[in-house]
């Protein structure tokens, strides 16, 4: 067995590199669709008048949801939505991908229908681990989302496991 490290100097150089920003227009239908798919029962995700009565500007983004990136045929979104769309390119050949984990951090700002978010992702860290599927590359991504008022509203951290 060779003991070559998975994490080459080239891969190391990708740590901290930012991907091109993505734009997300949050709309009411997307919020209702997401909330329904989870099974949420709070009307702040469905009924705009109710949400306003609770002090929100419009329907509120449920936990774990920040809308959908804008898709056009010229810039396909891929199969795994915002997270992969926004990921910086990494030169690493792999057989399979696993989602290792998800974390959302919020900064006290309401995120509502009508907001436009800009998300910028970077590779926060790369780690190597041996497991049931042999050597695995663990990629930690971090995406910061600012709203139309340039306020940081959320940070999404993801762990992607790549195996050969």
């Amino acid at each position, binding site marked *: 067995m060779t003991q070559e490290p998975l994490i080459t100097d080239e891969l190391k150089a990708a740590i901290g590199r930012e991907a091109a920003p993505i734009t997300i227009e949050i709309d009411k239908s997307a919020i209702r669709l997401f909330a329904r*798919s989870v099974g949420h029962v709070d009307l702040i995700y469905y009924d705009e008048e109710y949400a306003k009565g609770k002090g929100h500007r419009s329907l509120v983004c449920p936990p774990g949801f920040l809308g959908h990136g804008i898709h056009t045929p010229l810039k396909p979104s891929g199969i795994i939505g915002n997270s992969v769309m926004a990921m910086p390119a990494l030169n690493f050949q792999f057989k399979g991908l696993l989602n290792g984990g998800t974390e959302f951090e919020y900064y006290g700002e309401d995120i509502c229908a009508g907001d436009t978010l800009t998300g910028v992702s970077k590779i926060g860290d790369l780690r190597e681990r041996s497991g049931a599927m042999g050597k695995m590359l663990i990629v930690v991504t971090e995406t910061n989302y600012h709203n139309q008022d340039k306020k940081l509203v959320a940070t999404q951290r993801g762990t992607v496991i790549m195996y050969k």
Partner: protein
Amino acid sequence: MADQVYIEDVKVGDEIPKLVKNCNTMQLVMWAAGSGDYYQIHYDKDFANLMGLPGVIVHGALKHAFLGQMLHDWLGDKGQIKKYGCQYRGMDLPNQDITCRGVITAKEDNLVQLDIWAENPNGDKTTPGKATVILPSRG
């Protein structure tokens, strides 16, 4: 939704109300559209088998969203999630209970830390995580 919970009402060691979910494949399809994750292992049995899986499996991020629902329903109108996350350690299957639970591990000012997790019918923590939330004060 329950009555508003306040910081004065909670102490370290308390368990928050659990949320029991059970997804059929229709819900997984709805989630695919709702989240934008169209990976076929979550709705195409043949594809899932080809990838070495026993069948379609529940999306990790859907379990993350379930944990978010549990926190939101407990926090009520005046509480806020500051941060929450989880790791996907084990697969969950459709038509099996996924029980979301949380226990308070620390409390300081209006901030509360919790261990949160989703467990399968055998009691295995397939999806362990942590949360930081803000609770309102009485008066």
